[in-house]
């Protein structure tokens, strides 16, 4: 049985998926790599008036107007001061395209479903709203982000 599983890992592909891991505000996060369209360096964004503080503005991504969200600020962590070394992860959520400002992309993780633990019951509502699970990895804890909640419009529902 085990040999079969090794020989054909693809048969278990529903349980095995890849996540892009990144670091911001001193914490490690990840989300489904299939939702990532590209990763690019930080470029100055055009400020949107009356926007929430975590929305840094919009950038031009080959003709699309893409809002940039400071992920740390969105999660209630200290805001990120945009720097040239920082990166923007362009994610496609449903039909929407958004950019997430993070400090650095660290890894691509192959994670099977049973490796994902449910988010421990902590006090912060924000944390529980945005983190859908945690994954242990080399003494570290990678936080799995519920990317759909990150969208600025979904503010009220969260």
């Amino acid at each position, binding site marked *: 049985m085990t040999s079969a599983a090794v020989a054909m890992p693809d048969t278990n592909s529903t349980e095995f998926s890849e996540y892009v891991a990144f670091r911001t505000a001193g914490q490690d996060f990840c989300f489904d790599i299939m939702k990532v369209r590209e990763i690019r360096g930080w470029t*100055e964004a055009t400020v949107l008036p009356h926007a929430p503080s975590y929305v840094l503005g*919009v950038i031009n991504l080959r003709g699309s*107007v893409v809002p940039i969200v400071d992920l740390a600020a969105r999660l209630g962590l200290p805001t990120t001061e945009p720097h040239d070394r920082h990166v923007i992860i362009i994610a496609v959520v449903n039909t*929407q395209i958004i950019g997430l400002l993070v400090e650095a992309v660290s890894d691509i993780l192959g994670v099977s479903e049973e490796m994902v633990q449910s988010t421990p019951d902590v006090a912060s509502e924000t944390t529980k709203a945005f983190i859908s699970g945690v994954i242990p990895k080399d003494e570290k804890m990678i936080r799995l982000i519920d990317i759909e909640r990150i969208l600025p419009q979904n503010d009220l529902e969260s």
Partner: protein
Amino acid sequence: MSTNDIRETFFLECEDLLEALEEGLQDINDQSADGAVDSECINAVFRAVHSIKGGAGAFKLDELVHFAHTFETVLDEVRNGKLLPDSDVMGVFFRANDRLVDLVNAARDEEPVDPADNAAIEAELNKYAPAEEEEVDAGDYTPMGLSFDFELPDLDDLDLGPAKTQIGYEIHFRPFDQLYGNGNDAAHLIRALSELGVVTAEVDTSGLPAFETMRATGACLSWKITLMTDESEHVVLDVFDFVDGLCELTVDPIYEEADTPVDDDGDTGAGEELEMADFPEDDAPEATAAAPDLPMASAVEPADAAEPRSAAKQESGQAAAKTTKATIRVDLERVDRLINVVGELVINQAMLSQCAKEAGVGSGTEIAAGLDEFKQLSREIQESVMAIRAQPVKSLFQRMSRIVREASHATGKTVKLITQGEATEVDKTVIERLADPLTHMIRNAVDHGLEKTEKRLENGKDKVGHVTLTAAHRSGRVFIEVSDDGAGINRERVLQIGIEKGIVDPSADLSDTEIDNLIFAPGFSTASEISDLSGRGVGMDVVKSSIQSLGGRVTINSTPGKGSVFTISLPLTLAVMEGMVVQVAGQTMIVPLTAIVETLRPEREEIHMLGTGDEVVSVRGMFLPVVDLAASFGYRSAQPYTSSQVLLLVNTDDDHTYALTVDAIHDQRQVVIKGLKENYGDLTGIAAATILGDGRIALIIDTDAIYEQNTAQPTLMTYQPNAMGASQ
């Protein structure tokens, strides 16, 4: 899969056909008022219904087929000149048309229809299409046909000469089932014959079984066709080439010795038939009149140029009324993709020009000249591409005539809809999204705008209320006007409702325009409007917000006793606009050029304080409010105007003028509009975004929203962005 495709095509075609039907009916209606109805209109209408019936039959849409058949039968009466399309008949036709639209839509969406609705209209139709049809048919036409065939006249005129000249053919034609099964149609064949000469066709319905036993695919009819022509027999037979073996066909030549008897007979016939002289295929009067000449003509010139005529003219004859342009159906997605790419091209071109400039390329160089040409070309491409999406508002207006009919029916008011500028072209999306608000406005105009008939007569007005729908291009925008000649807005009542609903403070002193605008306030028109027609809880505020979401505005101009005019102004396209590039607190922004009246840089003395922090500027004796754009967007706290800044005088759609403070003006250029909504959402004061030459995004400001936001509104119109959802 492929059946679905065909089905889809059928419904697409139905849209066109229904449009042609509505248009044709409208034309007939207009013409019947003047007396003479163009036969081509009737043919067009008939063809439309017939084609829908035919297509529907292929998809076993029985209800649709049945209804279309009933409709067609009555239309045929009109076509044959046996029914005059007076206003009663046209009323039924219009209702039948509306029903047909419903049935087609129901069939497309695979929704059930209420047979009772069909029955009511079918009953009305059947009033005009009783079974007597056949008898009338025979009584009317048989003598005409016979007068040529019978030997009887010969007896009287035998002395006039024995030399028989062939003047035409008598054709007996009985199609088999398979003829229709192969996609042929007797009507087309008869029409093709009519290209060769003058045709008198008589249908023989004796083979028609009782309705209960009738098979939809069965061929029951046969025709006796008298064709007056000088063509040779094989030309006539060529017409039936494609149905060889699919029908019973005999072609017998008709001979004539002299003209006199026919002439006599013809005169009486022509007398009866004269008023329908416009109808085709029934050109009986012409037949008799032309008959005497025919032998001569055939004698003088033999049938040489005959062959090509039959095929070519058949086409042109059918399409004569519509000046047909070659069109193709293209998936909208492809067009949109093209538009997007062209948008990129324009941005790229701007970037390239900027790069060249920065690299120090002089204006006299070849590169600069090439770039200039590139700029012009890309602009031209863009305009051409945008034109693909542009459509005349005609289809929209046609839908509105139905709304007027229904509304006038429901309210018992006699209403005439007048449309102007139907050819005005607007972006397809705009047209689609305008349907709902416009429907509501039209209903309002009929329901609330126009007075009851008695009231109109009392006031010395025409019994018939008029609603006018106008479209026009003006200064880079499209204006659509809905006007009625009703009583105008009852301002007293409106103000009272406004106060009752807490929309306006009782102590407020409102101008007439402000009172008129109250009807756009959220919560103004709700349940208390007791009318099953427009009081559906959808208020004018929804109309306003859905028009705003298209980048449009709506304004009212009402004159008591004379009526009201609602004007919608819309951007021509949702894709490009002329804009002024300005600097606001370090950000580059775009102000729509259409909104800007002028720019000025006043001295500090021309700016006056008003109240605690507000400033006004005096321009030629007028004091206009000054709005600091940067502060309004929250980019910095409000600062008094300094003479290094520039004021843009901006005119809103409700004709308010105010001044916007910006830090500097950079440029004026065409910008490609990029929606913010898809990836972000709506932002107050921002209409859209665009991409500048350096690749960065600049926001396009919504000058009207800025005005509303920064000036005290007496009507407490709290803008509810989520109300827009209802407009979908």
